[in-house]
């Protein structure tokens, strides 16, 4: 069974149809990349999977391990193992990154029937993960995303992902705005999580990221549809030739 299956998905925002029949199958262990120009529905797809309000699914299904994801509330989806690294992470004033991580981690542990994490164990874990991502440990004392630079915000997203160890991780343009060093660190974070029972959906419009996170499949999204799929060579082709031919085909 596929880990995440999206079947003929249609969705609208504010009465406007954005997704027009998306079908995707992520097998455990796979990394899929979705590429496409701005405004084609990439973030819409990730928001619909994660369960954000304001998106109306008019047709189709999303299944996690065969379970109906669309019937679950956003927090249930998260606890079932769906993680979204946001394109625009929001600021949470007053809430330290540390308090946030701990609350999120404990929500997951509760789902698994485990007790709340011990304070020492938590600190050890955060120390290890921040070091791995080249983040100063003191960052966890700052309010989450408040005053973070673009790159810090993206790292904080990856930090959360590596702490929560989701089953399916969706990265929505996590590479945008990163310099080459940050890109490498973030990619290493993702690669260290790659495992036979986890899948990734990596959204980007630069093929550069895919030099570091090598995908099993690449899809082109245009005007709400997947208009081409292939291996990692498709990304190189897009880099060289642009999206023009797909946009025309889809229009």
């Amino acid at each position, binding site marked *: 069974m596929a880990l995440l299956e999206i079947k003929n998905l249609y969705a609208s925002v504010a009465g406007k149809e954005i997704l027009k029949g998306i079908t995707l199958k992520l097998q455990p262990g796979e990394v899929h990349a979705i590429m496409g120009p701005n405004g084609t529905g990439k973030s819409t797809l990730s928001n619909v999977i*994660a*369960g*954000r*309000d304001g998106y109306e699914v008019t047709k189709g299904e999303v299944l996690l391990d065969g379970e109906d994801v669309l019937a679950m*509330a*956003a*927090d249930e*989806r*998260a*606890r079932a193992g769906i*993680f*979204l690294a*946001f394109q625009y*992470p*929001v600021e*949470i*004033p*007053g*809430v*330290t990154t540390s*308090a*946030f991580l701990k*609350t*999120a981690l404990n*929500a*997951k542990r509760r*789902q698994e029937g485990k007790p709340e994490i011990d304070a020492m164990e938590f600190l050890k874990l955060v120390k290890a993960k921040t070091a791995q991502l080249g983040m100063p440990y003191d960052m966890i004392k700052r*309010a989450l995303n408040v005053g973070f630079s673009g790159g810090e915000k993206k790292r904080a997203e990856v930090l*959360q992902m590596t702490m*929560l160890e989701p089953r399916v991780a969706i990265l929505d343009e996590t590479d945008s705005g990163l310099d080459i060093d940050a890109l490498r660190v973030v990619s290493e974070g993702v690669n260290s999580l790659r495992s036979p029972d986890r899948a990734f959906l990596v959204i980007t419009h630069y093929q550069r990221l895919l030099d570091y996170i090598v995908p099993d499949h690449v899809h082109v999204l245009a005007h709400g549809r997947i208009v081409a799929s292939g291996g990692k060579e498709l990304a190189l082709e897009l880099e060289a030739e642009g999206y023009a031919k797909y946009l025309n085909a889809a229009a």
Partner: protein
Amino acid sequence: MAVTRETAAAVKEVEQYKYGFVTDIESDKAPKGLNEDIIRFISAKKNEPEWMLEYRLKAYRYWLTLSDEEPAWAKLHFPKINYQDSYYYAAPKREKLASLDEVDPKLLETYKKLGIPLLEQQMLAGVAVDAVFDSVSVATTYKKKLEEMGVIFSPISEAVHKHPELVKKYLGSVVPYSDNFYATLNAAVFTDGSFVYIPKGLRCPMELSTYFRINEKNTGQFERTLIIADEGSYVSYLEGCTAPQRDENQLHAAVVELIALDDAEIKYSTVQNWYPGDADGKGGIFNFVTKRGACRGKNSKIMWTQVETGSAITWKYPSCILQGDNSVGEFYSVAITNNRQQADTGTKMIHLGKGTRSKIISKGISAGHADNTYRGLVRIGAKADQARNYTQCDSLLIGDKCGAHTVPYIETRNPTAQTEHEATTSKIGDDQLFYCMQRGMTQEEAVSLIVNGFCKEVLQTLPMEFAVEAQKLVGISLEGSVG
């Protein structure tokens, strides 16, 4: 489906105020209503000396001249209170207790439900508790140990007998009987409360704490607290309150007076969780409280921390009179209003001495149809050279049917004084909630996390054990506030 949901909602609402139970205990009550006989009755019950009765009667007669002069300047709306329709004295029967073992087991059970371990062996180390049940102080723990250090921590009714010179000297010296409508009423009918005296130079090694509990129906609670920190001493005092869930409104009009002499410091923390009424605004406590501290001595300090989550109406302005040179007043407040609750709360910092400093940090959180007002006064007198004040008022709104208001008054009569005021208003956004929920938190956890972050600065000033409780309370009192 709809019915199931309604039932679930009803059950949840009941669970929400987990202190809403009533203890079935026989009580000794004065007849309903208020007149001189009732005051004589209360005084006689407590076997009070003549001077105490005279004080009460003086207050009562003054109160009569005030009839219909309840303060009307606060942003609060409530029906006219009929002061004749209440009981002014209710005590659990069997009140003369020689030791804790004699306390009615039902009472102990009540305190257990409230999470207050009354018996010493069950106590949190280092916390001494005075428990006031309706009108009578039921048990004071750790008494012996405190006595050995020269600390007096007793029901005020006992202090009237054992330490009349201290009570006479200080009672009404910070909040005179003529101060305001509710304080005057309190001076006439107060039934019990705590008395604390910390001797010179002693840093009281344990938190002193009082729990107030209204149990009886139609009873007002009028407790009176008097704390005196003698030269160079320090005390941290915590007050907690709960009441059963009832459809009628009940009145709570307390008076708290603090006196800090030279180089003394008093830290007074309140976690107020009186029954707030139901989601439609039925029932709940009317909390009209006068709390004031006098920094009489040089370099003295009074610090108020309050976490106000309960009551249908909160009218409360813990204040500091900074008389001693270089004395310091601080006020840290979290006021949460949900559903139909109304809070009009803040502080007064009256700078009289030279070099006096004050700091005000107020966090108001409003949800549902609630109204939350910060009202504060900073007054700098002509002699208060180099006085300083810093005020920060932050409001957080949850939903769009609630209100937050900030009413800061600043009066400066000394050109060398400096005051600084900052205010913000923010809202919990849907995008913030979604972000948290995408990380697996329930909506309630998300609200609680964000709100606790918002008021962290205040909660941090609470004693450790109570900070944890207060954090939970913040979450509970906002349950059901979103969606």
